[in-house]
């Protein structure tokens, strides 16, 4: 029987020396060391031996197993290190081949700008108040100090519905009245809200004008809101939205629902105020219309204008988005061409 042990040992070690890959390593292991392998078979023959030989035979088979285990381990290490070396040497790929594309998805640029607005205004205590798109003429105009036939109605090309009392809001300002009436608690509570939303104007659709566009209106009502607060608040917004050193210019203007009214310009961030095509060589970009809430509008919102004051402003996110990304054509916004949307 010792012959068989020696024979198996020789065969096994000989065979192991020719093994160079993982599969044949596994084959070798199961052939010699597996449950049905040669070594197990040797153990299986123990029962057939005379009792006095069993112990020593058993010891030798055990020794064989240990030796083969060790040999296997050594060979495995050798094979693995060779394989690793070969993989490192030969496993080069052409890294210039195109990637396996991933769809990452993306927010609409308008949403991105609105989020930026909302974050900045939230930090200054302005919460979002949403108002309706289809409005009563009364809210869109009359309560905002634009009675029928008011010249300022000419400034806005209105979409009317077949019910002449109802229109598509031309600006987010009617939300001022709704916010005051809903949040003001009969003119007794301060308010700080922004009103983002879609507005509509009956215009020729061109690269520069659209029939729908978004606005963000802001409204602050309090017992002691000053024009200087309006300036300070807008300046703070400009610093965060444009640049910490953004210069701001205020121009007297006119909106029926604010008085005094002013337009706010920020130094053109594309040319640093030097003058370029985008700012029409003036060095300024118009960013907001604003003013102190008109006493009649305060009254229409339920406040006593001798006790309460407020400011309001309106901004056009599309224009800011266009400036920031060099978008030349406003029709891109609602065209939803994926080749456009995928660039954000």
């Amino acid at each position, binding site marked *: 029987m010792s012959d068989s042990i020696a024979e198996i040992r020789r065969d096994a070690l000989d065979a192991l020396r020719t093994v160079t890959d993982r599969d044949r390593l596994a084959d070798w292991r199961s052939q010699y060391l597996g449950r049905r392998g040669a070594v197990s078979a040797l153990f299986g023959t123990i029962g057939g031996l005379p009792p006095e030989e069993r112990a020593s035979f058993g010891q030798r088979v055990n020794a064989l197993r240990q030796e083969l285990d060790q040999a296997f381990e050594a060979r495995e290490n050798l094979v693995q290190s060779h394989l690793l070396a070969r993989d490192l040497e030969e496993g080069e790929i052409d890294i210039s081949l195109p990637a396996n594309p991933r769809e990452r998805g993306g927010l609409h640029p308008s949403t991105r700008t609105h989020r930026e607005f909302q974050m900045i205004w939230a930090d200054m205590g302005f919460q979002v108040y949403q108002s309706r798109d289809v409005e009563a003429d009364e809210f869109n105009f009359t309560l905002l100090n634009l009675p029928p036939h008011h010249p300022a109605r000419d400034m806005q090309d209105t979409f009317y519905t077949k019910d002449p009392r109802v229109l598509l809001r031309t600006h987010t300002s009617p939300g001022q009245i709704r916010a005051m009436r809903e949040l003001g608690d009969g003119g007794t509570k301060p308010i700080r809200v922004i009103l983002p939303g879609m507005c509509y104007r009956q215009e020729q659709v061109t690269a520069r004008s659209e029939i729908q566009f978004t606005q963000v209106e802001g409204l602050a009502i309090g017992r002691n809101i000053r*024009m200087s607060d309006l300036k300070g608040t807008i300046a703070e917004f400009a610093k965060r939205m444009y640049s910490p050193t953004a210069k701001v210019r205020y121009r007297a203007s006119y909106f029926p629902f604010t008085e005094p009214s002013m337009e706010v310009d920020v130094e053109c961030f594309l040319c640093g105020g030097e003058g370029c095509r985008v700012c029409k060589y003036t060095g300024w970009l118009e960013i907001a219309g604003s003013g102190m809430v008109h006493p*009649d509008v305060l009254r229409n919102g339920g406040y006593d204008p001798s006790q309460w004051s407020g400011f309001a402003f309106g901004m056009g996110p599309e224009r800011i988005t266009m400036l920031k990304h060099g978008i030349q054509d406003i029709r891109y916004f609602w065209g939803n061409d994926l*080749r456009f949307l995928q660039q954000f």
Partner: protein
Amino acid sequence: MLVPISWLRDFVDIDVPVELLAERLTVAGLEVAHLKYIGLPQQSVEGVRMPRSDHLVWDRDKLLLARIVEVKAHPNADRLVLAMVDYGGERPEQCVTGATNLFRYKDAGPIDPPIWSAFAMEGAEVWDGHSDKPKRMTLKGKELRGIYNKSMVCSEKELGISDEHEGVIVMEHEAHYVAGAPLADVLGDVVLDIEFTPNLARCFSMIGVAREVAAILGVEMRYPSFDFLAEGEPIEGQVHIDIREPALNPRFTLALLRDTEVKQSPFWMQHRLKLIGQRPRNNIVDVTNYLTFELGQPMHAFDYDKLVERAGGTPTIITRLPESGEQLETLDDVLRDLGRETILVADSAGALSLGGVIGGGDSEINDTTRNVLLEAAAWNNISIRKTLREQKVHTEASTRFSRGVHPSQAILGCGRGIELMRQLGGGTVARGLLDAYPVPPEQVTVEVSIERIEGLLGMKVTIEQAAQVLRRLEFEVTVAGDLIRATAPDHRLDISADPLVGQHDLLEEIARIIGYDQIPDTIMADEMPPQRENTTVLIEERIRDILVGSGLYETINYRFTSRESEAQLAPSGAQSSLPQADYVEIANPAASERDALRHTLMINMLETAANNARYQTTQQVFEIGKVYLGAGELLPEEPLRLGILLTGPRNPAWWGGAGSAGDMDFFDMKGVVESLMHALHISDFSMKRGTHSSYHPGRSADLLVAGACIGSFGELHPEVAARFKLTDAKVIYAEFAVEPLIWQQQRLHAIEALPTTPAVLEDIALVVNADTPASEVEAVIRQAGGRLLKEALLFDVYTGDQIPAGKKSLAYALTYQDENRTLTDKNAAKIRRKIIGAAQHRLKAELRA
């Protein structure tokens, strides 16, 4: 409005560069959109940026004021003459010129009085008058048909004043003209193009702008004379005024000039009118236009004799509303039907003009007119606006009257107008003016305390400072203690009699004249309202993030559509499953296919998908937006909807071969919907076979949240898809109401602890009837598996030769696990037996070998 700085200087001294004035006007609310330079150099002013102008700057040494003293024939050319020009040199310069307007002086000896014109010396730069495109040229000496010539007399085009190139500039003598003076000092100018907001009606004239300039610069305003030399018979008795609608026509004034001559206006008048874009006609009409722009008081001139003829005697000017069916042919040759709103100027024979808007042809001034009746009136601006809307006409007069012209201006215009007409055309003015003034506006006086001014502005202002600003704007101001009392000047209609509104009116004047830049920047010291989060916004943004994270792009579509477009969303013969609501219909739509507001996001998302299909095979997009459902109330409901659209290959083409996964289908959308529900932590949701008619009848589902259906999703009905030419790949669409998700999403949810015991994994395949829903099989497996069955993942669905017809095989990967102990093979086998038993019993399933 175009405002030449030279005209402004008639009324106010301007001692700052025009560029700085433009900036000051702009920040004070008179937005200067553009500066047009005529001959003068553009100046650079610290802190003021302007577009660089490429105009011709007149060389002060080479472009001179000169007089043409004689015109001689050119010996070799009929169409050229020799102009002898005194430009202040030792002897006159001879210029060869083809200017047709000099031909009449040819060989007629010395011209007396001499003609003043613009003279360009050798080396001067001018525009090439013969070039169609702007082209500069420098004068050089050369022979013109045998006569050497090195200088020229200029046309307006050559100087960049206008496109006029018919003849050279011909100006009448003025006392201050000196031959050889730089032309820039005589005709050099800058024209400001100013845009006025509606509250600045008072500024629609040179005097209106000059008042602002005076207030801004703190200088004196210099008014023209409104007196007139009247030596004729008194006007009383020669014409009468009958105002029948005083509310619409609060004032009407008339002046009469007899024995005048209608002819061309002198150069200065024509030049000014041309500078502001008006075409000169004749001296009478030019004066009415001139005063419209100078004073802001539009006027109208009638041929008095025609009125006499029409009346068969002394005319009476009647202002009234039209009679029914009345018509008038206006100066623009339009025969107009007169609606009930239009206030008319008429006489006993009928309508003469649309009051404050446009004159009629009948009583027009023409070359033979000798007696002129001049009207200056005041009109109700709302009434004028109604006329404009009804008659669709706009004139310089209506621009002003529709914004509001104070009635005080009429009498001023009448006086100055008749005097100018007399000066330009000669004749005798009737003594006195006829002035019917039934409704003088009330004077407005506003009281405001300095505390209120300071409190609203947030700026230190002294009462003297505030009072002075108002005085500069011609308010009458008295100061008593800390109270200002200010009475608005005659030309202003914008100061409110409401005490609080009036205070804001004054506040604005004080702030904008002192300068908004003087107000400090402050942080609101006022009480901060409670900060409430907006749950709708939060969930909207959360949904956006989840879907973008799933690889979808957000779109924002038009909210406009049409009834007909949305009707295409139901296949033929099928009832539409869209909301049964009224449409919000647009009375003045931008286009007929956009004449209503949408009931669904589907319509525009499909149109967008069709557009994108031209460039992209795979589309994964969504939109969150409102739909508009008329509900019988004044205003519609505006619920928020989420629309999702998937189409095209699941994986984009790639060299590595991943593109083999096929086109997206129902189950891709189901995956998007489920992951959305999971990400919102909405656990109470389910799906059932859908019935929405826009979808393939066998491939759609309704989504139920908390038992209520919030929308549907599925494969678009092939007929609907074909209408939008979306036939290359299946289109999978979903639309849900967003508001129900707000209340169902779990803001707080508990997590499951991570198990520490090993799991047992095994696969089973069940053969069931082909029409048994997979959800039912899974439910049976889960129920039988009980607590220890952690996962049952369907990984294969098979129908085919290896199993009987009418059957399908569903293969599940099962995960057994007990958090408290390690499961043995025996435990696992027991669960497996229970599952198989239940499947056999309840589904008549067989275990697939």
